[in-house]
């Protein structure tokens, strides 16, 4: 009888878009990121900002969008999601 791998963690792949100062600090405007299944936007943020004090300091003013809709940090991501990291807007 075959054993099931107990700790097999499924992965999801999402597309992350970063804008303005966040794009500069993260070093990309668009990138595919692999996350553990069940990961939230907050977890994504932690992974991306980790170790960069300037990015970490921008959390309070950053808004998240998933597939074009503003969503909260506790939102669970699904594979194929397009996530945008958005500093305060400056149009006009």
């Amino acid at each position: 009888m075959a054993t099931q791998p107990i700790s097999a963690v499924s992965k999801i792949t999402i597309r992350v878009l970063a804008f303005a100062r966040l794009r500069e600090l993260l070093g990309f405007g668009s990138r595919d990121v692999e996350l553990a299944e069940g990961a939230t936007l907050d977890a994504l943020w932690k992974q991306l900002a980790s170790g960069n004090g300037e990015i970490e300091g921008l959390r309070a003013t950053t808004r998240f969008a998933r597939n074009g809709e503003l969503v909260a940090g506790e939102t669970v991501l699904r594979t194929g999601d397009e996530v945008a990291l958005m500093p305060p807007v400056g149009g006009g």
Partner: protein
Amino acid sequence: MVALSSAPLDVAALVRDVQTKEHGAVVTFLGTTRETSPDDPRPVAALEYEAYDSMAIPEMEKIASEAREQFGPLAIAIVHRTGRVALGEPSVAVVVAAPHRARAFDACRYAIDALKARVAVWKQEVYADGETAWVANTPP
């Protein structure tokens, strides 16, 4: 009509687009690049805009709908530049045609206020010395 445009704004064309023989009033707002930054003492040489198109466009459409719901029948065009905008050039145009002027003024002002607060567009000031800084809007 709403759009993002990497080319200079053709304001006369926007006015022609919204104007009809039932509209007695056309109010246009142009936001133009100022040399004086609210945040930085250095003279501004240009602005550089980037947009999240797939959120910005639906939000501009939403603002246009809200203006019609709130103020009554009107025609509205909202266009925002992307990329580099030279000093004195318009970066945004809001053009409203309505039967009477009160509605046109109110709707135009509503739309530019909403755009500045909500639309996914970011602005970078490019100073004469080549340095840059991202500038967020503050409430009016």
